[in-house]
């Protein structure tokens, strides 16, 4: 069951890589922000699922809102000459690490619990 998302990842990656789809260079940084927001939403979604608190609307709106906010910050930063892009990168990157550590904690605790259950 876990292979399905992984397969999705590989499939999406291969599809775009092979068709050599690109976007105009002006929007390259926004695309990068979208990828980072996607990564953050993905880990957030996995963590929420493990907590039993997954909500579709929160998940989807989270991705869209984060991407829009990050793009807005990047554009605003370009206008005023301050690298606001960094704020988005740091915030999203920080959340990725946070979510990953929570996922890891849930997984290891569950694994330990189930091992205890089996032994006794």
């Amino acid at each position, binding site marked *: 069951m876990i292979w399905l*998302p992984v397969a999705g990842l590989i499939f999406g990656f291969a*599809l775009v*890589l092979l068709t050599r789809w690109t976007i105009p260079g002006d929007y*390259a940084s926004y695309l*990068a922000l979208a990828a980072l927001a996607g990564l953050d939403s993905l880990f957030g979604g996995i963590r929420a*699922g*493990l907590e039993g608190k997954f909500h579709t609307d929160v*998940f*989807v709106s989270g991705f869209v809102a984060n991407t829009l906010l990050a793009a807005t910050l990047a554009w605003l930063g370009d206008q005023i000459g301050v690298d606001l892009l960094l704020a988005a990168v740091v915030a999203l990157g920080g959340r990725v690490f946070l979510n990953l550590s929570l996922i890891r904690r849930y*997984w290891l605790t569950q694994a330990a619990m189930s091992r205890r259950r089996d032994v006794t």
Partner: protein
Amino acid sequence: MNQVFSRLGSKNWLFHVTLMCFLLGALLAANLNTQGSMRQQLGLPAGSGRVPWLVEALKEQRDTNEKLKATIAELRAKTEEYEQELSQRSRESSSLNRELQEVKFLLGLTPARGPGVIVTLDDNKSKRVGDIDSDLYIVHDFDLRNVVNELWAAGAEAISINDHRIVARTAIRCVGPNAMINGEPTAAPFVIKAIGNPADLEGALNIPNGVVDLMRVGIKVKIERGQFIEVPAFTGATTVKYAKPVPLKQEGTN
């Protein structure tokens, strides 16, 4: 491990996570593609990290320049049309127009054809990179300038390097691995076309201890004669900001 994920239970979660993974994969690949194509357009080696915004700005300027050059070529063609038209109206304007076209030709604003030589200079790739004397084995800006100078001295009337016309204000400079001619970057092999007396031009280049002799030690030099060598027109800007023509002395004044 399935026990952990069995908490999730809902197919909803799996579907959305798979969808997000697909989207993420697509975004990552699109990023890779875009960065790769940008690097390709700018001629940077692959895997050189993030393309800084300065390089992006350079690329934008280059694109604008290309478009403007196309516009210049169009406008010049139109101007020539009008000149031809006007010249047909009267005998005076027709002879004036002939002089105008002659001057344009001499300045290099029109393509030219005639007998001459083609000199090809190329890096000597057979030498190992990292050799102490590796500088000897690549074509430098001074090599190009020496050849061009020798050709002018031998009576060449029109010269182009890699289809960039050499005119009075043309500068040949080294920028990293490329040469900049008329502000345009270009690289080896350098094909230098010159229109003139083929025997004179070839002879001048091949003088013992002359230009070619000195270059042959390191780089590859090939000279061939031709009967119908074509040299393109100069496509750059001809604006003059500081120099002003000195007026001719009026008749009857001292």
